[in-house]
């Protein structure tokens, strides 16, 4: 794993660094610490980055500008912050976890485990997805999202107004964030279950989900049983 720590408090950064090395052990490939947003932005561009541990109050700046940029990236973001009242908003932006300061080793381990075990956040509802569009970061409300299609390392977001947006996160990472209302019905598709009208069985044991707007999405043969058990 490649990890970036963004933290302007030197002592705390060292603590996070020490604990992370300890927890991840051999799973850790590289670990970098930066103390300003400017320095962070060069690292964030790196495609091999897996996780950013982010302090929301860097040098007196409002952390949400930074957060928006971070969550649009291909990596997961875990916020480590002193301001607990920002936790709900942070989750809505699509962070994997929010670790309030002061924290101990156990709490940090719990957060890091989420990235390792592909644990689904579930309890916290993501309300916005940040996408990069013409060099700027835009926020798309989850309620406008119908389904997500995997496209290599990227994903395609299909929206209610018929448009399609690209997202930097992989289908696996989005599945982790959106698990409260979306279901992976196919290896390439993640669908919001509230927009599924019915499931059509076709000849040759082919299954399709018909959405309310008439679109048909294939259902994986192996997934059908789980979905039937969970949703029907």
């Amino acid at each position, binding site marked *: 794993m490649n990890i970036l720590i963004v933290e302007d408090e030197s*002592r705390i950064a060292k603590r996070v660094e020490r604990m992370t090395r300890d927890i991840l052990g051999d799973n850790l490939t590289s670990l970098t610490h930066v103390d300003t947003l400017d320095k962070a932005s060069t690292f964030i561009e790196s495609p091999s980055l897996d996780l950013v541990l982010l302090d929301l109050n860097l040098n007196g700046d409002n952390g949400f500008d930074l957060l928006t940029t971070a969550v649009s990236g291909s990596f997961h973001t875990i916020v480590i912050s002193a*301001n607990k009242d920002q936790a709900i908003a942070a989750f809505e932006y699509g962070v994997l976890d929010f670790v309030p*300061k002061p924290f101990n080793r156990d709490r940090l381990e719990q957060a890091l485990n989420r990235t390792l075990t592909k644990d689904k956040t579930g309890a916290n509802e993501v309300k916005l997805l940040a996408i990069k569009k013409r060099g700027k970061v835009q926020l798309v409300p989850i309620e406008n999202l119908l389904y997500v299609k995997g496209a290599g390392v990227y994903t395609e977001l299909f929206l209610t107004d018929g448009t399609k947006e690209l997202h930097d996160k992989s289908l696996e990472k989005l599945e982790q964030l959106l698990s409260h209302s979306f279901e992976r019905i196919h290896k390439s598709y993640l669908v919001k279950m509230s927009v599924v009208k019915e499931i059509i069985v076709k000849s040759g044991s082919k299954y399709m989900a018909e959405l309310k707007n008439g679109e048909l999405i294939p259902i994986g043969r192996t997934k059908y049983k789980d979905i039937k058990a969970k949703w029907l």
Partner: protein
Amino acid sequence: MKSAPFFLLISILLLLSSCEQKPAIFKEHQTVFQIGDNPAWAKKIWNDSNWKRRINLIPEGEIFWSRTRIDILKAPEDFQSYVLQIDPYGEYEIFWDGVLIGKNGNPGKEAELPPEGELWVTYQIPTHLSAEGTHMLALRLSNYYFPDHVGYYEIEIADYEDLLTDLLVKTSYMHVFAGAFLIASIYFLFLFLNNRKEYPTLIFSACCFLICGLVLTVFSKDYVPIHYSVHVIRLQIINSFLLGISFLIPYYFSMQFPYPRRGLSLIIYAVVLISIWLVNGHAFDYKTVSMTLSMWCFSFAVVAHGAYKKIRGARLVLATLLLSMAVFLASGFVVSLYTGLGLILLGMLYLLTLNMKAQRLAYERSLVRSTRLRLELLKKNIQPHFLMNTLTSLIDWVEETPKKGVLFIEALAKEFDLFNQIEDQTLIPVAREIELCRTHLEIMGYRKEMQYTWEEVGIDPEQKIPPGILHTLLENGITHSLPQEDNNVRFKLIYVSDSNCKSYTFLTFAKELKKRSDNKEGTGLKYIKARLTESYQSNWELISEPADHGWKSVIKIYS
């Protein structure tokens, strides 16, 4: 609430209009005069066709007679009796149809005897002489004290009961009126004594007192016996009260609605009033009307200017002035004088209450501001960004290097202690503030693992400054700076003072992180400005700007 003054005005108007006129019961003919003394001149029938209508001067208290033919239009009813009310200058005997019905003093002997009798007297008209038809009122007088003031008097004949009732009603109403002004005068005097900067309250109090005095002097004539020789004194007192009122009311308005060249215009106005007061000897009615009209015109000009400038309350006062003029035009001078004064004073009172409200709000705002600043100071140490980051670092120090951790805890305890000592003060010695800054640097040193150095030049430790302002500059400096190559951030405080200015220059030597946004003023600077305003009103200046070495803030306090 705003309609209350109007309600009062309308009530007063209704009260005045309710005094209805009764039908006349007598008719007065031309009074004629004759110098000399003849008992026969008292008779009902006597040829007075060669008597004079007017005599300008009767010197040395010589006896003279006056005869007035009076028609009684309606005889009194059974058990009812008529009285005659008369107020001539002089001592006299009074005859009705040849019968002596009263004596007031000693006509003809005034030079030898002391003054006797009073100016306003009523005489019973014998019932058998009050029949419908022509009657003769004859007076045998002498006028020793005002020999050039012969024969000016009013005659009133009325039912005895009615006359008493009318007098009682009029006098009691006017005394209630005077009493209200007396209470207002005392109340606002006390208000002034408790707040001696509020001159409008003093002037309002004086106006109320003068009006009370005016009303009492005018309406006490029916029960305070006054000899005709001293009546001029009463009139002079009345005019002096009016002089005071006529000056103070526009003066008050000029304070509430200021305009250019105020002093000069007030001096000119005072000269005009005093010359009206001094000239024309005994023409008291003329003086009264002139002074009152001058007062109205000047007040109107001042208030109209105020209304034009849209000063608060000016429109309502202008309305009361116009209303008082309307009353004057509709009902004549005497009624409008008291109604008008009442109206104008209500207008003044309204302005005073507006002022009081404004003062109360300003005071409440200052209280709220002080409380808010106190809370902001307290919050510095418990706001999560400071507290939680500090605690996280602290845990790490305790876990990794317990001995250093203890030193860290001690520094933290000291900062909390210092905050506790200053939190409820508006000014503290600068030495205390510097101690706070040094402790804060120690804490930040543990957190950021950086070298922070503090220098000071020319500090006078006894000088006082608002709490937390240097601390806030320091916090900003720490937040927005990166260390120089030697992992060091340096702060320097320089104090310079001269006769009219004390100046604190706060320098940060560091790599500036990035340009601090100028359009968005941080909460830190807002706090500093609010604290400076709280203690020095507008006599301060704050400059905060980038410098070659990092950042530079200057606080100037003017004396």
